[in-house]
């Protein structure tokens, strides 16, 4: 018994040391990126001068902001992400209410139609959706980036499940009081559904904040490009001159605020990722 304890304890220690090494390996890419973003642009990177350089500087950040409109990209991303979210919250509440509390003809057909969105990923539909956006004359607009995501099957089902748990009596009472359906939905159904809506919001935000292919396809100028596409364009500029300290500064501009928010709201972030398995 004692021998086994000893063996398991030394195994434990060994495991922790190994874990430490792996953890450092995992963390190094971001630490290095951060360090090099302060590397003086006139000092070239080499195996012996790999980190902050002799005199750390903010020059890379100044240049990055000068040659790429990161502020504009941030605004675009924020408008896209929250524009999608606000419309989604409306559409999913309405649709969820319909499925949770009404019996109507064609219910199953409509249910399966919406289910289709969970089955066919939007990335596989860029060819026809791109031409739809062209036909609507929306190419290179923020609306083009948002439009395909205004309805959400995942959100609709989430709201349906949540609304179903609310006692029908409350609904009836509200109607007896003379409330119309909108007032009933707003006062009876929405308040208890808030946690579900927050969970949905976090997964929607993180998906659309990070999305790249669709905005790449439907945007073509600084006024509509989100951060992800903006960074890709910026990287390709910087890579031509092998200006890595500049590229890393651009990367930090994009991920810095995100990582800061993550540090502050770690628990909420992790919760949201646990919910985002289904989009």
């Amino acid at each position, binding site marked *: 018994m004692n021998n*086994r304890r000893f063996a398991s304890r030394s195994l434990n220690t060994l495991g*922790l040391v190994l874990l430490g090494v792996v*953890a*450092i390996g995992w*963390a190094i*890419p*971001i630490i*290095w990126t951060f360090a*090099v973003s302060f590397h003086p642009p006139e000092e070239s990177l080499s*195996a012996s001068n*790999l980190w902050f350089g002799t005199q750390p500087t903010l020059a890379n950040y100044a240049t990055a902001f000068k040659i790429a409109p990161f502020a504009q990209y941030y605004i675009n991303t924020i408008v896209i992400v929250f524009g999608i979210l606000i419309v989604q919250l409306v559409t*999913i509440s*309405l*649709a969820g209410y*319909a499925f949770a509390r*009404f019996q*109507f003809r064609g*219910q199953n057909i409509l249910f399966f*139609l919406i289910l289709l969105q*969970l*089955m*066919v*990923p*939007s*990335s*596989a*539909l*860029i*060819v*026809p*959706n791109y031409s*739809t956006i062209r036909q609507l004359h929306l190419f290179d607009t923020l609306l083009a980036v948002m439009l*395909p995501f205004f*309805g959400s099957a995942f959100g609709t089902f989430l709201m349906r499940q949540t609304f179903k748990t609310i006692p029908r009596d409350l609904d009836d*009472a509200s109607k007896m*009081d*003379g409330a*119309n*359906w*909108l*007032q009933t939905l707003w006062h009876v159904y929405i308040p208890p559904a808030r946690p579900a809506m927050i969970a949905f919001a976090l997964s929607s935000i993180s998906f659309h904040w990070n999305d*790249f*292919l669709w905005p*790449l396809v439907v945007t073509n100028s600084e006024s509509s490009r989100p951060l*992800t*596409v903006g*960074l890709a364009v910026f*990287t390709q500029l910087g890579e031509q001159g092998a200006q*890595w300290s500049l*590229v*890393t500064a*651009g990367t930090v501009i994009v991920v810095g605020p*995100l*990582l800061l928010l*993550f540090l502050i709201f770690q628990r909420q972030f*992790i919760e949201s*990722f*646990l919910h985002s*398995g*289904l989009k």
Partner: protein
Amino acid sequence: MTLHSRTTTTKKERRFRIGTAALPYVLLFPTVLFVTVFTLLPSLRVLYDSLFIQNQAVKIPQFAGIDNFTELFSSASFHDVLFNTFVYVLVTVPISVFLALVLALILNRKFRALGLYRLAFFYPTVLPMISAATIWYFMYTPGYGLINVFLRNFGIPSQSWLGSANLALIALMILGIWKQTGYFMIFYLAGLQGLPHEIFEAADLDGASTIQATRYLTVPLLMGTTLFVTTIAVINGFESVDQIYIMTGGGPNNATSMLLFNLWQTLFSFLDVGKASAMSVILIVVLLIFTTLNFIFTERRATYE
């Protein structure tokens, strides 16, 4: 119950009074509209377009039956694409899922700096793939890229990771594993929190070692989580595109081109709508299989928890 008589309803309230029979359709209208325009019709459209030759060489689309598919499946470059995609998925998925399980098992205890460890493994999940790919593009730089600097300590000469047909796909796999392991780890941590304590106490009393308890109790009990994260990993793997766009552009020599990237390229570089639609159909079929599995496993996971 208060007695509001119906006669006191204001004009504003009346405006929202829709016939009860029509109401559910009104409520569903926006969602059904968007799903129809951006999912249902496009799905049918790719299916239809995949049967036509529609590219720069023809003025009017020509019906071609399944020619687009047979041409794709007989072209060497599409073989490369399928090969790369499947190898990428078959290598990254088991490694990251296994690693995630091991990390979760180790980190599911209380010890010093636990938060820091979790942070180290989870933060790549928070980064957009585009920025993660930019960072790793930099890591792989020949000469002073950290990967090469690190390997030089072991006497391995500097490699052009992304410029070599043998190494480029491996380089993308390393990024993929680094990026998603922490994500799967939190599913395992959540799963571990939900396991019943009593079984482990009983096992301990019976003299089972930690390793035995892990092998014969924990891992089987986490099967639901394993199936769930595996399908997510597979779906994400098949949808890989951002990192290819940033790091390799599908090269060198087609060595890193995968399904979704190839589809994008076929549409926007080669302007071949017919082939791109056929690829969409192939991608949809592959993903449909796994999303269905994912759906089943989600239901199962929900009933476990």
